[in-house]
Structures are given as structure tokens and as C-alpha cells.
């Protein structure tokens, strides 16, 4: 019994290290195909539609809601110290530096990353990728690369939209509902947020998250078991792994660059 669990542990470790190695090679292939002709512009645009345009509604709605809640929470806490005038700075900084990129990435993982993994996994199951290989078309080039690139490109834009809607939501609650002075709110927000640190930082974060989600989703779909259980495992795995690695990467980026 003891022996079996040790064996399992060893097997799992070897498997994990193997996955790390394969995902690195996979990443290398995706990156090298991004700089190689043909550019697959048509497929890229279609993927950008799936990832970006179809995620717009959920990202904007969530942004407005999060901003509104943050305005409400911030207000109740700040009034205790008589510091309601800093509400704009509180909402703005927490949205721009932290909540915007992280929540957008988590939402997009659920909305588009899972679908991406499921699509590739079902292509594996129905041997469509093998069909491509038979026609000497590299599936990494034809299927994976446009998807991963679309994720990388769409994420910073969705993040920016999330932030704008969240700032708007915070403004509506703080100024219109709770009666903080509008000018004070906007001024305290604009003074506390800096371009070099905060705005570039949020774009850096969302770019990294976009690459991460794109890589995890496509890789997990690519190595899925060719069964229907494999498709569902790939979808679940993508959401779990991508979410955890987003949060880990967020900590690392914040610790390294302080954004």
C-alpha cells in the first residue's frame, strides 16, 4: 500500500516535469511560427472575434459591477477616517494595478480559454489534427498559433475596457449615489495613477496573462486524450491551471516590478 503511493508520487513528478518540458517545446514552436510565413491572418482575425469580441459583454459588465462594489466598499471604509476624498485613488489604483488585469484574465479564461481547449481537444478526438498532418500542414502553425496570438492581443484591450468600465462604475456609485464630489473623485484618481508605473504595468500584466492563458489552453487541448472524457478533462484542466498560473504570475510580476 505504502509502496503504491510512493510509486504514484514518483510517476506524478516525472509526468509533471515531462509536461513542463513539452510545454516549453510547444511554446517555442508557437513563437517560431508567429514569425514565419504564411501569417494566417484570416484565421487570426476569426480567433480574435471569438476571443475578443465575444468576451466584450462579460468583461464590460463585470468591470462596471466590480467598480461599483469597490466604490461602495471603499466609501464605507474611508468615511470612518473621514477620507472619502481619496475614494477615486482607492478605486483607481486597485482596479488598474490589480483587479483589472487579474479579473479580466480569469473571466477570459472561463469565457474563451475553456472553449479554445475544448475545440482543439475535440479536433484531437476526431483526428482532425492527424488529418492536417497527413496533408503536411503543421497543426501548431494552422490551429494553435492563431488562437494563442489572438489571446495575447485581445487580453490587454479587454483589460483596458474592464478598467474603464470599472472606473465608470466606481464613479457612478461614489459620486452619483454616495455624494462624493465629482471633481475630487476624478482628481484624486488621476493624480494617483501614473502612466509609467501603473498603466504600463497593467498592460504588461495583461500581456503576460494573455500569453499564459493562450499557451495553457492550446497546450492542454493539444495533449488531450482522444476520448470525450479527454475533451472535458482538457477544458477543466485549462480553467484550473490557467487560473492558478495567472494568480502566481501576478504575484511574481508585482514582486519583481512593483506594479
Amino acid at each position, binding site marked *: 500500500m505504502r509502496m503504491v503511493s510512493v510509486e504514484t508520487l514518483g510517476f506524478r513528478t516525472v509526468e509533471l516535469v515531462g509536461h513542463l518540458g513539452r510545454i516549453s517545446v510547444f511554446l517555442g514552436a508557437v513563437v517560431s511560427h508567429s514569425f514565419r510565413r504564411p501569417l494566417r491572418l*484570416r*484565421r487570426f*482575425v*476569426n480567433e*480574435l*472575434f471569438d476571443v*475578443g*469580441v465575444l468576451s*466584450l459583454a462579460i468583461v464590460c459588465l463585470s468591470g462596471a459591477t466590480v467598480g461599483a462594489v469597490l466604490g461602495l466598499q471603499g466609501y464605507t471604509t474611508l468615511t470612518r477616517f473621514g*477620507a472619502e476624498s481619496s475614494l477615486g485613488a482607492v478605486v*483607481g489604483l486597485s482596479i*488598474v494595478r490589480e483587479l483589472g488585469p487579474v479579473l479580466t484574465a480569469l473571466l477570459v479564461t472561463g469565457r474563451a480559454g475553456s472553449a479554445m481547449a475544448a475545440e482543439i481537444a475535440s479536433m484531437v478526438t476526431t483526428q482532425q489534427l492527424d488529418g492536417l498532418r497527413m496533408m503536411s500542414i503543421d497543426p501548431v502553425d494552422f490551429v494553435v498559433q492563431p488562437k494563442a496570438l489572438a489571446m495575447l492581443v*485581445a487580453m*490587454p*484591450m*479587454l483589460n*483596458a*475596457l474592464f*478598467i*474603464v468600465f470599472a*472606473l465608470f462604475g466606481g464613479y457612478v456609485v461614489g459620486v452619483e449615489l454616495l455624494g462624493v464630489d465629482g471633481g475630487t473623485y476624478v482628481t484624486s*484618481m*488621476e*493624480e494617483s*495613477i*501614473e*502612466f509609467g508605473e*501603473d*498603466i504600463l504595468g*497593467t*498592460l504588461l500584466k495583461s500581456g503576460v496573462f494573455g500569453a499564459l492563458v493562450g499557451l495553457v489552453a492550446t497546450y492542454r487541448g493539444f495533449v488531450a486524450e482522444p476520448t470525450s472524457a479527454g475533451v472535458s478533462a482538457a477544458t477543466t484542466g485549462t480553467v484550473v491551471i490557467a487560473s492558478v498560473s495567472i494568480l502566481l504570475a501576478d504575484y511574481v510580476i508585482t514582486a519583481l516590478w512593483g506594479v
Partner: protein
Amino acid sequence: MQPSPIRDVVVGIFVLIGLGTIGYLSVQVGGVSYKGPGGLTLYAAFDEVGGLKPRAPVSIAGVTVGQVREIQLDELLRARVTLEVDRDLELPSDTSAGIRTAGLLGDQFIALEPGGEEELLRSGQEIAFTESALSIERLIGRFVHDSGVSAD
């Protein structure tokens, strides 16, 4: 997937909106400002700037007329503050600059007080009269020290 012109246009609009939002965030919220061919750039040296930060407002009589561009250390080891104020502002050459605090715990800003000279400050000139930031710790220290002396 079939090529679809409508989809392409929608994706194009999405990209435009996305880039526009990033631009909006950078310019409006982040404060990357382009104010045409330069506002009036003035320098002022302070012994102590306290908690003054770049982008802090510069005001005259409480009206914001510009902002702090950067804060550096000059060769005399004083804080050299670069101010950018509205270009059409006519400031006398004996204008003084002081670092004030908005309220008890508020942010620090620079208050300009115009003097009475005929001559006007030009861009790139230095404000000669400055008043450093008020440090509450130093005030308390001085108060304690002074009262100690008078007790002798």
C-alpha cells in the same frame, strides 16, 4: 470557417475600441500629457520638499495652473523642482513658490505667490524666492528644544 466581411469589420471595430481605450487610459488617467509646444517651464530650488511628488498641482490663490514635472537634486544638494504652468500666465519675476499641504493630512502642492515686479518670468527661468515644506516633526522638535532652553 467561411470568410465573412461583417466579422472582419466587427473585429476591426473591436481592435479600434481596444486601442482607443488603452490610449484613453494613458492620456486621461495616466497623465501622459502633450500640451503643444510647451507650457511655461520654471525651476525652483527648495531645501526640503517633504512629500511633494511629480504631477502634484501648482496653484495660484488656490486655482490650479500647472503641475510638478520632476524633482531632482541639484549640485548644491537642494531639491530642484521643475514646474510646468500655463503658457499665457504672466508671473512677475519676484514671484515666490511655497510647498503647502491641502488640509492636515492632504497631499502637498506648490503655491505660487505673485510679486510686484514689472518684469515677467520667462520659460526656463528660476523662481528665486522659495519656501520649503513644513515638516511637522521639525516644528515639534524646535518647539520642544525652545521650551527646554527657556526653562533654564
